[in-house]
């Protein structure tokens, strides 16, 4: 199902993200970590997500900032697990993978992080449109990995 979350309302991000949010299923590959905090990295489009208890941290970015064509197409199961929220309560992030070669800095548009800001429940969903990849170059906007 095609979901239309907040795309540019950064004030909403700022307001909601000062709280801890909960990932009941964790991230794929890091399923045992359930609590994270997000802070805006000042003067950049990046957000800093840190686990509250363990040593895991990530940079995030608004996928609509990276690709104006980005769409969030998730399984109805995922939407229900988020509490079937109003779209205006949803925000979406893409996890950034840094690299010493700036050409290879990428973000993951296949597995976006979706947050229900009303309940602070989050879920890493799988974008059902197979054109999105795990390594989308921030610099060129092109895929750095093969599609599935």
């Amino acid at each position, binding site marked *: 199902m095609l979901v239309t979350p907040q795309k540019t309302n950064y004030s909403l991000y700022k307001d909601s993200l000062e709280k801890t949010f909960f990932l009941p299923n964790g991230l794929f590959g*890091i399923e045992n970590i359930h609590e994270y905090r997000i802070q805006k990295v000042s003067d950049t489009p990046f957000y800093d997500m840190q686990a509250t208890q363990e040593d895991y*941290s990530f940079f995030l970015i608004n996928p609509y900032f990276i690709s104006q064509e980005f769409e969030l197409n998730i399984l109805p199961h995922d939407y229900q697990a988020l509490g079937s929220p109003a779209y205006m309560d949803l925000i979406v992030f893409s996890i950034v993978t840094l690299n010493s070669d700036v050409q290879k800095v990428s973000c993951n548009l296949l597995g976006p992080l979706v947050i229900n800001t009303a309940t602070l429940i989050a879920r890493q969903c799988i974008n059902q449109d197979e054109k999105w990849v795990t390594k989308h170059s*921030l610099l060129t906007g092109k895929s750095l990995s093969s599609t599935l």
Partner: protein
Amino acid sequence: MLVLSRKKDESIVIEIEQGINIKILEVKGDNVKIGIDAPPHIRVFREEVIKKIAQENLAANKPRGASQPDDAMLNTILKQ
């Protein structure tokens, strides 16, 4: 691994009280179409997709203390 033989339109039930039912819908050459009924809290994935996302998550985990992306890198990205 438990191995069961099934024909088209036959099903497998997992955890009957949870209502998980897997049905063979179509067999064409080496391609099998499977229908899965499961409650919303049961997550069903294609294995290669979650492996790829898990691998990327682990690669994206940054050292604590890397408080923001390198300035030169950031400037290059933002100029695009």
